């Protein structure tokens, strides 16, 4: 006679689809094979039989067009920033950034260097930080599982944040890259 259930929200079906998609995204992370700093030396063992990242569905892709994750592996030099921006903007949405090492958090041992960025999050939207100098492969796997959790919960939205606040990021990027010759909208 009476309905004691609250009315179903419209778009429940879409939510289910989104959940399935998020599960798929979390379990199939393709990483751009692009090492920016010394941390990329710790990425290599991930593919070997000892750590085997393929069991989590993580794979290296040789081209940013096909990747989901960009790993900033350690310090980011001012010269590399331009290339990283180009690579990041060529990745198709949704895309995630994982930052390795203390250098990406606050500059680490290069905090007073003339050519190293101190806080990466001002220039590109970081989804997951993995601390350490350098983080061991176990720590990187831990970072990946955190990223997977965030994606499943729909909280890994750095790419949306980047689009919405493009002006803020561009302003910061242009402070570092003096001879700016990139197109303003690059994807």
């Amino acid at each position, binding site marked *: 006679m009476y309905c004691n259930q609250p009315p179903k929200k419209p778009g429940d079906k879409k939510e289910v689809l989104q959940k399935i998609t998020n599960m*798929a995204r979390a379990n199939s992370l393709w990483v751009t094979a692009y090492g920016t700093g010394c941390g990329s030396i710790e990425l290599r063992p991930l593919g070997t039989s000892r750590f085997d990242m393929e069991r989590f*569905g993580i794979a290296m892709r040789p081209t940013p*067009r096909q990747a*989901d994750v960009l790993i900033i592996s350690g310090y980011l030099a001012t010269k590399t920033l331009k290339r990283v921006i180009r690579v990041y903007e060529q990745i198709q949405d949704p895309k995630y950034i994982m930052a390795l090492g203390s250098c990406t958090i606050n500059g680490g041992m290069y905090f007073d260097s003339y050519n190293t960025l101190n806080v990466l999050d001002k220039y590109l939207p970081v989804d997951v930080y993995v601390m350490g100098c350098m983080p061991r492969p176990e720590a990187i796997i831990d970072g990946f599982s955190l990223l997977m959790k965030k994606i499943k919960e729909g909280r890994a939205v750095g790419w949306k944040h980047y689009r919405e606040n493009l002006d803020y990021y561009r302003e910061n990027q242009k402070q570092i890259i003096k001879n700016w010759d990139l197109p303003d909208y690059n994807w």
Partner: protein
Amino acid sequence: MSILLTVVTALVWGLLLGGISRNVTAKIHGRVGPRVTQNFIDLWKLFRKTSSIHHGGMFWMAPLFRITGAIAVLLMVPVVVGHNINYNMSFAGDIFLLLYIMFFGCLGMALGAGNSGHPYSVVAISRGLAQMSSYELSFSIAVVAVAVGLHTLRIEGIVAAQQAGVSSWNIFRFPFASAGALIAFLPMQMAYPFSIVLAPQEIPIGPPTEYSSRFLSFMFSGRALFSVAKLLLFVNLFFGGASSWMALFVKTFLLYMYAIVVSSVFPRFRTEQSIKFLWLVPTTLALVDLVRVML
């Protein structure tokens, strides 16, 4: 309806075979390996990604060409012998049309990837076309040897001639032609000694360098379909066809594993080595049987 059944079965089986092969390769490397269903997950993820890359009309069409070519091959090969549940476009002389139409997807892919303008794509395409012309030769000679020996140009006729037990399979009646065709099967599957087209460490991924999201998901499904179509063709031509679904899955699985195992233990040829090998060894093997049949 039967067309849909054939295509969906082939797609699911192709993706599953891909997952199993990734697992087998991982086990050979001493790794755990991904889930068997990993390819389905990858496909869904790619399908749901945005795509904002435009490189012209042919670039858009290439994945469709690939899928169309794969489906065309699939529909011309009998899936389960004696069952009408699967659509089979059979007519006299279909084996020759099939030899031509197998090129269709690859050529469409070459045009599309060429349109993307990426240097790695262009290098890979020139390598791929050179290699294709060399393995197609040995494969064609092997098929002609079988067709002449059995006096039929229908694939159904070739399958029907092998139904009198294992000893009547073409691999035993035409051993040299079969050996030649099985070597040509490796470059068709882009398996390792001949993987000069994708060549991951040289020209990062070859033709699909610029392809992303939905394009790539279409390309993956096209590849899965095409590899099942090729497996079916080989099973029908040399291994007596499949009399039941079980036989079909077992035979195609074993044939696929042959390519995977060879692929896991060999390094890659250089382009000229690959082409020289394919012109010399499998072609000579196939010619031996052709001459034997004609004498």
